């Protein structure tokens, strides 16, 4: 066993898959060479696997995406890194029109088994363009999967599964988790996390809270605090943002009848709205309270000034306060 952080878990996942799958290539801006990515996620990989398999791309996101897809159609798995999830936007057309449609439009003759990694999330002093949650832009594009790990174990296992998956997978990584969460991971254990399942991280009876990313950490802390006050919380790590794992979501909602959904993104138009709609459709008469969303305000995410950044971000105290209030509803 060795304690590693979320970023190291990602690096291990890619290292192991490069060793296992000779077709696999990994590239993106500053991903190759000695730098190994601006967050160092690919550090050491170019040296170990050569510049043909792990390399720098020019500064062009549509090309990064299309290069991956073109490798995919010829049977090569690829991991393409977008330097920040904000910079995935120039590649939107490639991801939606090409990657997400390839299998369906040829009924499986051609496929795009590629992973697009995208570091997302705020609280890093990055202002609008180094902080955003852009996952909602790609929500509801059948053929595409969107996943995000919120534990160290999943960072490793989910990335390995995404690489092995024959579908295109958008892989979101919360930047503030890179070094803030750590876990003991046996380097010899082959970890594969299901890419199609939400995960119940904590069982409880009084209320159900679903989240992902940084805010999920706050939910777990609050659940712990509430437990001391005798309130028992069911905590769901949504994990597969699209398609959603309806069964796990609905079961967890029914279990307590009080549901809180939390994410860092704006309140309107994101993943949480869809989850709320699914619960309403399948569990309306089990609900004891309106499904609540705790999320960022509906303003552009997020200003640079420290006080505004903080005001934009859902804070740990907010999470606990809302949970407590919902439990008492």
């Amino acid at each position, binding site marked *: 066993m060795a304690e590693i952080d979320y970023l190291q878990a990602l690096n291990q996942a890619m290292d192991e898959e490069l060793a296992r799958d000779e077709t696999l290539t990994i590239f993106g801006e500053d991903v190759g060479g000695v730098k190994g990515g601006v967050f160092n996620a690919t550090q050491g990989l170019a040296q170990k696997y050569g510049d043909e398999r792990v390399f720098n791309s020019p500064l062009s996101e549509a090309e990064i995406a299309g290069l991956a897809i073109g490798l995919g159609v*010829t049977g090569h798995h690829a991991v393409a890194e977008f330097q920040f999830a904000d910079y995935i936007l120039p590649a939107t057309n490639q991801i939606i029109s090409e990657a997400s449609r390839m299998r369906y439009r040829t009924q499986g003759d051609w496929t795009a088994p590629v992973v697009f990694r995208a570091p997302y999330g705020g609280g890093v002093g990055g202002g609008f363009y180094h902080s955003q949650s852009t996952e909602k832009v790609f929500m509801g594009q059948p053929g595409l999967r969107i996943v995000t790990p919120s534990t160290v174990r999943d960072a490793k296992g989910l990335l390995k599964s995404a690489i092995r998956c024959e579908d295109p997978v958008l892989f979101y990584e919360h930047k503030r988790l890179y070094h803030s969460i750590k876990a003991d991971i046996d380097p010899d254990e082959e970890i594969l996390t299901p890419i199609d399942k939400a995960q119940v991280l904590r069982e409880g009876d009084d209320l159900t809270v679903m989240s992902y990313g940084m805010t999920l950490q706050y939910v777990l802390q609050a659940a712990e605090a509430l437990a001391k006050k005798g309130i028992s919380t069911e905590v769901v790590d949504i994990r597969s943002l699209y398609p959603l794992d309806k069964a796990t979501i609905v079961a967890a909602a029914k279990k307590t009848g009080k549901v809180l959904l939390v994410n860092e993104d704006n309140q309107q138009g994101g993943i949480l709205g869809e989850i709320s709609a699914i619960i309403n459709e399948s569990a309306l008469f089990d609900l004891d309270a309106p499904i609540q969303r705790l999320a960022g305000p509906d303003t552009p995410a997020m200003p640079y000034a420290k006080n505004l950044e903080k005001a934009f971000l859902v804070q740990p105290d907010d999470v606990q306060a809302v949970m407590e209030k919902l439990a008492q509803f």
Partner: protein
Amino acid sequence: MTAQLLDSGLSKTTLQTIYKQILSARRLDERLIQLQRTGKTSFNVSGQGQEIGQAAMVAAFDIKKDYFLPYYRDMTAFMLWGATMKDILLDSFGRAEGPSSHGRQMPNHYGAKHLNVVSQASTVASQFPLATGVAYSARLEHSDRVTLVTTGEGSTAEGEFHEALNFAGVAKLPAIFVIENNHYAISTPSDEEYAAKSLADRGAAYGIKGVDVDGLDFTATYLAFKDAVARARTGAGATLINMNVIRLLDHTSDDNQRIYRSKAELAALKAKDPLKTMTQQVLTEDIYTQAELDDLEAAIKKQINVATDQAEAAPLPDVASLTEQVYAPKEKGNGIYG
């Protein structure tokens, strides 16, 4: 001005085959127009005026191993790459057996797994980044295969065109990028599309060889591609070819070019029809006699009739398949599904 066909260095037999394929494509296109006009199909893109250039282009490749990412006006090229009349008609009728998309896409969005012809979207130029990935795969596999990708001149204004060529230059990819320049993007004439003297000048912008070629001249076009393919196959990198052609007909069956092109312009175009030129050359150079050509016309007509009947009778996709192949089938036991 047009070079002799036999100066291409291709044999008489090869030139016979190619001419036959070109004529078939022209006649098939005429049938497709008829089918659309009579409401039997709903859409067609005609490539008339671009066939000679397309045929000369494909003749330079090894279609057994090379890859092709075509665009919607490439019916002739697709047929020379191995697609049958029936294939084309199946796609036109939106039939399940259509190789391009099994009835999923509009006609003229060519693709075929068994021919290494990669499926294309309607979003113009989006095949260019893909083509760089296909080309890069050859390097990973230590294969000397070459990747061909085409588009119209209007579509070169897209950012994705630029991003792909830039990477191809950096990575010295074994790829050939072709602009089928018919000087119109729907109704927009090329001086409203770009201001470069020639689009071949964009080669230098990417450290790629840029070549201009008269796509109405079979031999000139063939030789330009032959050279480009040889360079790509031997590691000398990519080539950008600006192939000047003409668009004889409307943009698509939804368009009416008489609105934006004058009668005089259209008449001048018609006089330049490269099929007429080539037919003349075929006769002059004794590749076919007139009698053989007459037989050929008859044989093609028959083939088209048979293929049309077969394609029309072929089944539509099964409605239940609407929800199939959205995602890969979930294999059990591989650990990646819950």
